[in-house]
C-alpha cells in the first residue's frame, strides 16, 4: 500500500482532468473516472487480508454464517453504489447519482431483510 504513489497519482490525474476540462470535457470526465477506478482497484486488492481478518473475528464472536455473508454483501453493494454515484456526480449527472444511491439503499434493505426478521423475533420472544 504505497500511499505516496496513490496520492501522487490522484493529484496528477486531477491536474490532467483540469487541463482537459476546457478543451475536451468528455475526455476529462473519462480521465477522472479512470483515475477513480485505478485508485479504488489498487486499494481494494490491498485490503483483502483486512476483510478476511474481520471475517474471522466475526466468526470467533459467534456470528452465524448467513449474517456474515449478508454483512459482506451489504458492504460490497455500498462500495459499488458509492463508486457509481461519485462517477455520475463527477461527470455532472447529479440526479442520476441520486437514483443510483436510491437503488443501493433498496438493495441493502432487501439484502438485510432476514436480519430484521431475526431481530424482531428475538424482541418478541423477550417480550412474551
Amino acid at each position, binding site marked *: 500500500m*504505497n500511499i505516496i*504513489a*496513490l496520492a501522487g*497519482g490522484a493529484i*496528477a*490525474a486531477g491536474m*490532467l482532468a483540469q*487541463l*482537459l476540462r476546457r*478543451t*475536451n470535457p*468528455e*475526455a*476529462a470526465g*473519462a*480521465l477522472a*473516472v*479512470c*483515475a477513480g*477506478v*485505478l*485508485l*479504488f*482497484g*489498487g486499494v*481494494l*486488492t490491498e485490503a*483483502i487480508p483486512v*476483510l478476511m481478518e474481520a471475517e474471522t473475528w466475526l466468526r470467533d464472536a459467534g456470528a452465524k454464517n448467513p449474517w456474515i*455473508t449478508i454483512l*459482506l*454483501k451489504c*458492504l*460490497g*453493494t455500498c*462500495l*459499488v453504489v458509492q*463508486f457509481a454515484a461519485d462517477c455520475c456526480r463527477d461527470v455532472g449527472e447529479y440526479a442520476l447519482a441520486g437514483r443510483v444511491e436510491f437503488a443501493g439503499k433498496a438493495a441493502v434493505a432487501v439484502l438485510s431483510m432476514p436480519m430484521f426478521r431475526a431481530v424482531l423475533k428475538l424482541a418478541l420472544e423477550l417480550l412474551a
Partner: protein
Amino acid sequence: MEIDLIFKIAAIGIIVAVLNQVLAKADRQEQAMMVTLAGLVTVLSMVVARIAQLFETIQSVFGL
C-alpha cells in the same frame, strides 16, 4: 496504480482537442466532429475495460 493509462487518456484527449480546433478552423466541421467521436470511443473503451475488471474484483471479494 498504473499511472501510464491516465497519461495515455490525457494524451488522446489533448490530441483530439488540437485536431478538433485545426479541422474547425479549416472549415471541416463534420470531420472535427468525427475526430472527437473517435477519440471519445477509444478513451471510453479503455475505461470500460478497467471498470469491468474492478467490478469483477468486488464481486469475488464480497461474494456479490
